[in-house]
């Protein structure tokens, strides 16, 4: 069994895995799979160690798509086959994250319903559109416009937490990003910020 830390481009040869092991790089075409020991039992420490290992790899690589905790393959042949099957998609994702890192925003609050004379169907569709694009974040988007290279919005259904917003920024831009977020008031919404992270939210899933 092989554990997977990341799919990368220009991955470091000397990196250390979550359990202190030297990582191995399996090259398939123009993809590099950064591999190590099989995933350990789940624990808070194991999650932290996996995150730290991915971060070391991402910091030293030109481009890095992090692998979820627990990702593994039976052997090199099956890993290689999994990569080959998704090579185009992974190559495209690597190009997007190259030289970049991720900032994560948790958006708290509620979206005010827009007063509308339209019928229930139109109102429903409008509400859905707004919940996907979160127009309430526009002031933030314009403040960040010079920094954001890509955005993913994930809506949540729980009361209080409205959405998670993931932004890809150029490496080294985290401080400017943080300052822009902190100096942009949002009406009715509160935003908490974490990062920089490896580009967790911009990695495609390889599972069928």
């Amino acid at each position, binding site marked *: 069994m092989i554990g997977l830390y*990341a799919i990368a481009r220009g991955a470091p040869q000397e990196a250390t895995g979550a359990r202190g092991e030297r990582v191995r790089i399996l090259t398939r075409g123009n993809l590099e799979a950064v591999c190590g020991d099989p995933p350990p039992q789940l624990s*808070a420490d194991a999650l932290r160690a996996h995150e730290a290992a991915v971060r070391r790899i991402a910091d030293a690589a030109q481009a890095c*798509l*992090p692998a979820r*905790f*627990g990702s593994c393959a039976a052997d090199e042949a099956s890993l290689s086959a999994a990569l080959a099957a998704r090579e185009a998609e992974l190559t495209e994702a690597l190009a997007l994250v190259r030289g970049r890192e991720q900032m994560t925003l948790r958006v708290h609050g509620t979206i005010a319903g827009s007063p509308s004379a339209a019928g229930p169907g139109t109102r429903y569709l409008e509400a859905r559109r707004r919940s996907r694009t979160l127009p309430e974040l526009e002031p933030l988007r314009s403040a960040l416009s010079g920094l954001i290279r890509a955005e993913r919005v994930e809506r949540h259904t729980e009361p209080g*937490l409205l959405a998670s917003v993931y932004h890809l920024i150029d490496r080294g831009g985290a401080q400017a990003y943080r300052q822009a977020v902190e100096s942009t008031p949002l009406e009715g919404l509160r935003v908490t910020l*974490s990062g920089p992270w490896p580009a967790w939210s911009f990695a495609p899933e390889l*599972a069928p």
Partner: protein
Amino acid sequence: MKKRARSEADEIIDRADASLLEIIDHVLNKGVMLQGEVILGVAGVDLVYLRLNALLCASDRLLPRREGK
């Protein structure tokens, strides 16, 4: 086995601070996944998933608030 998995998940949730919460969300919910059944096969992962969103909801109380709000 099931019981053990639950207690591991509970322990993680109980000890969760804001930064661990963020790590859980990124490391378990995002990223390249090679084999769906394998990640669920790591004991307790599914249980952590179940309760993660509820905790993230509370993260505005866990994470440090911005000054001057």
